[in-house]
């Protein structure tokens, strides 16, 4: 039980993790992330890497949609921009892979600013449609700008290299993808400790009074678009190094909806929400597949019968969350925390 948070300085109170249990759990979690690649097989490592890439993209979208209130269905297109940028830089420039990842983020951010321009005038569903339009325009570009993108056949990506080694196995890539993800999630959390994050939330909650408080709307909306696209770009860049080939179909429009669903299920407007949402959405279909495999000996025709059931259960889970836990998975975690705060004196 925690009686109170007796902080002696304002700085301590402004820290990212304010209580000792929080810090302990975070240390345990980080230790767990170090152990993971040594203790799971290649298949699960593949899943973990994919999950981690999705965490980056979802966190970016959460900054834009969850925190700033600008609905976007273009996140996958920005991932594609990042992936193509990495592919193109590897092929034509041969720059080091960390430079390429930053380049992927910046290229996506630049496009994100352009796509964000209508956001000063259009809101909600209208903005969502505008971002859909942008993704289809980008898809068209990927197919037809063959000298850069390789058209429909796509473009192969050379493996990421550090001096003396090529990063080709999932194990090796994990040590790039995971640290980058941790840095980006922490950076996202940091934004919301400062005036910039507060300005985003102000725009989401009540943009008129945000303006009276001295927050220039257009500048901050574009900044939010740029950050979200930067995250998508880096995620797409890592994806390119992971799968080593990028085609126009690598990032289908469904992927944007997948990411939007991830932040809704996880919890809009909380950093934790973006993370757990992406993890849940990536891992649940796989877990359900295992469930189907386990029960198949007892059910005749399991293969044909149960695979649609898997999709239905997955859909049902999402709807269940929307109905029973509209604040998302992050809220469940907060509730558990509050419970143990007073445990065992109040249960």
């Amino acid at each position: 039980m925690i009686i109170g948070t007796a902080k002696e300085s304002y700085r301590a109170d402004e820290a990212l993790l304010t209580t000792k249990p929080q810090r302990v759990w975070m240390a345990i979690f980080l230790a767990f992330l170090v152990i993971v690649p040594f203790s799971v097989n290649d298949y699960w490592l593949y899943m973990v890497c994919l999950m981690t890439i999705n965490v980056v993209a979802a966190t970016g979208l959460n900054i834009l949609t969850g925190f700033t209130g600008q609905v976007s269905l273009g996140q996958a297109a920005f991932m594609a921009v990042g992936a193509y940028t990495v592919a193109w830089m590897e092929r034509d420039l041969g720059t080091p892979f960390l430079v390429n990842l930053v380049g992927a983020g910046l290229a996506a951010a630049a496009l994100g600013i352009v796509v964000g321009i209508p956001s000063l005038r259009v809101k909600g569903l209208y903005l969502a449609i505008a971002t859909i339009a942008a993704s289809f325009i980008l898809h068209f570009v990927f197919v037809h700008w063959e000298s850069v993108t390789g058209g429909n056949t796509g473009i192969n990506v050379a493996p990421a290299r550090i001096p003396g080694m090529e990063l080709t196995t999932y194990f090796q890539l994990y040590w790039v993808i995971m640290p980058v993800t941790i840095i980006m999630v922490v950076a996202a959390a940091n934004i919301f400790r400062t005036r910039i994050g507060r300005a985003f939330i102000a725009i989401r909650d009540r943009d008129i009074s945000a303006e009276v408080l001295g927050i220039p709307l257009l500048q901050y909306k574009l900044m939010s678009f740029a950050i979200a696209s930067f995250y998508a770009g880096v995620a797409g860049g890592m994806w390119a190094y992971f799968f080593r080939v990028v085609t126009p179909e690598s990032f289908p429009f469904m992927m944007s909806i997948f990411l939007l669903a991830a932040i809704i299920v996880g919890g809009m407007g909380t950093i934790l929400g973006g993370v757990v949402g992406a993890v849940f959405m990536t891992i649940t279909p796989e877990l359900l597949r295992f469930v189907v495999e386990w029960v198949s000996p007892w059910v005749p025709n399991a293969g044909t019968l149960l695979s649609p059931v898997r999709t239905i259960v997955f859909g049902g889970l999402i709807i269940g969350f929307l109905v029973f836990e509209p604040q998302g998975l992050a809220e469940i975690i907060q509730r558990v925390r509050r419970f143990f705060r007073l445990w065992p004196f109040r249960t």
Partner: protein
Amino acid sequence: MRMSDAAALKVAGVTLSFGGVKALRDVSFEAKAGSITAVIGPNGAGKTSVFNCISGFYRPSSGQVLLDGQDISALRPPRRAALGIARSFQNIALFRGMTVLDNIKLGRHAHMKTNLLQAMLYSGAAAREEEALRRDVEERIIDFLEIDHIRNMPVSVLSYGLQKRVELARALAMQPRILLLDEPVAGMNREETEDMARFILDVKEEWGVTILMVEHDMGLIMDISDHVTVLNFGEVIAEGLPAEVQADPHVAEAYLGSGDPAALMKRLHEEAEH
């Protein structure tokens, strides 16, 4: 932390029309530095429109708004905020999803310097700025307005009176040189009204901020304002000391339709009782 220095605000010949309807006609008045000026008038007289012209939501079709002699008519609302014009709204405009503390912190936005890169790294400069802000908000504003017990609550759970107080706190965090209060005590009970009156006076005296307020509570206006401007149908129909305005038959007529100041006072006192 710099003590804000009061600014003088001048509204000079402002006319505002929406299509064919003139919301304001050639409105001129002045809020002297370090004073409390009240704008009163019946519903629909254009009081909030004046405020919207000052804070920059409406662009008057003619006339000027001058802050310390400088014409600010062409500036966007965020620029005006940075110059020291703070405002509270008639129907509270707090950010409901945020805590009291975060709402107040937002007020300082325009005076802070942290850029995106510093924010993402939470660099030394960003941390120091946040810490200084927290200290200032806690020790000057939250203490002063006696809202320390609610600082970590989301504003949506607070009573109306407390929400009004948080809105004042947020306006004070803007380091205002002039504070526009749109019906600061509307809907408050007597005790809350007295608290608010005390805070408004203290803001003027201790913080040295010019105050311009729209209010219906005539008792409050008579008690604390230095100067009163009366609007009716978008025009200034009287101005002067509170007592002068109260005795002005034009004012009584605007409110009652008959020019009897005594009847006006009686009516307003009755309203205040309810």
